[in-house]
């Protein structure tokens, strides 16, 4: 009988230790979930109608409402943790609408400077960011962290607001009447509005950091916060107002 008691005790102890181990194993992921809880509500993807709790960089939620209905079809907020899909769709029209919007920012940041003159100079960065998608991904992550520190808001939301505020609604085109070239105002499609907004945000980040002490992630964070508040000092909203002013005078 005594032997049986001992054996039962041992079994009980073993069971108790096993439970402790299991509870420790369980508690570790629970703690992580508790940390990310304020943002980790399931978000429904508008395209696939699947619900997921995937967060951008493991921190920020994709559950952002788009205020401008015209950009709604083109701002893609499909939840991906590290948006880097090796897609094949460059020759298809409107395949841009299927890319995650953060990945489109990466693609527009991988550029060798400003294409045209800005402030009297053409900036060439000589391949500092061209083709370096992992580097750009880290830049965006640290820029988003800085935005979150400064504004205490979801940086994905700040980014979407910045895009909405820097998308022009009218533009000009050149028309030639018998040797005289004149400008005519035309409207801008939703896809092109988003393209211009993304390009100007990326150019502002590159110009803000080139030959300056400021790092590019700080410049990008500054630009996102300014453009989201519709500030006068933001490059992207300034450029948008300039385009619209020229179009208004050419009506």
């Amino acid at each position, binding site marked *: 009988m005594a032997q049986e008691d001992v054996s039962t005790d041992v079994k009980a102890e073993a069971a108790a230790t096993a439970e402790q181990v299991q509870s420790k194993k369980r508690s570790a992921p629970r703690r992580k979930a508790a940390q990310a809880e304020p943002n980790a509500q399931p978000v429904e993807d508008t395209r696939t109608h699947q619900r997921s709790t995937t967060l951008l960089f493991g921190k920020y939620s994709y559950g952002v409402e788009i205020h401008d209905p015209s950009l709604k079809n083109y701002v893609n907020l499909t939840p991906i943790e590290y948006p880097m899909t090796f897609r094949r769709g460059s020759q298809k029209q409107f395949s841009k609408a299927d890319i995650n919007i953060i990945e489109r920012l990466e693609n527009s940041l991988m550029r060798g400077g400003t294409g045209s003159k800005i402030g009297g100079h053409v900036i060439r960065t000589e391949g500092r960011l061209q083709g370096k998608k992992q580097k750009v991904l880290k830049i965006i992550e640290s820029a988003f962290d800085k935005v979150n520190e400064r504004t205490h808001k979801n940086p994905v939301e700040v980014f979407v607001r910045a895009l909405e505020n820097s998308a022009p609604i009218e533009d000009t085109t050149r028309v030639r009447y018998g040797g005289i070239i004149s400008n005519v105002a*035309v*409207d801008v499609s939703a896809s092109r509005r988003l393209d211009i907004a993304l390009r100007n945000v990326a150019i502002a980040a590159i110009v803000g950091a080139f030959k300056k002490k400021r790092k590019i992630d700080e410049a990008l964070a500054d630009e996102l916060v300014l453009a989201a508040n519709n500030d006068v000092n933001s490059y992207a909203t300034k450029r948008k107002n300039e385009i619209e002013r020229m179009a208004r005078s050419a009506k």
Partner: protein
Amino acid sequence: MAEENQPARPHDAPQQQPRPQQPGTFNGFLAEIIEVKQKVKTGIYGEIYTVSCRILEGRDSGRIIRRNLLGPIKKGDVIRLPDTNREAKDIRVK
């Protein structure tokens, strides 16, 4: 300051001036593209589409007007128009 005290003249109303922008609101009026004339691309480089679109906002909502558009478009897209009283003219290029 004297101009503010005068009553608004009725013929000034159709000229829709850009309003000061508040957070969450945008200038312009929403319109939905209902027809794209693919064969009538104009402009020097053939980059301008002529479309007919139905206005969704404002006092002209429901009206169908013709506009010139820049950039990739397809039927069913929603665009923003700066004003709704102007019909697009033909852009004729030799």
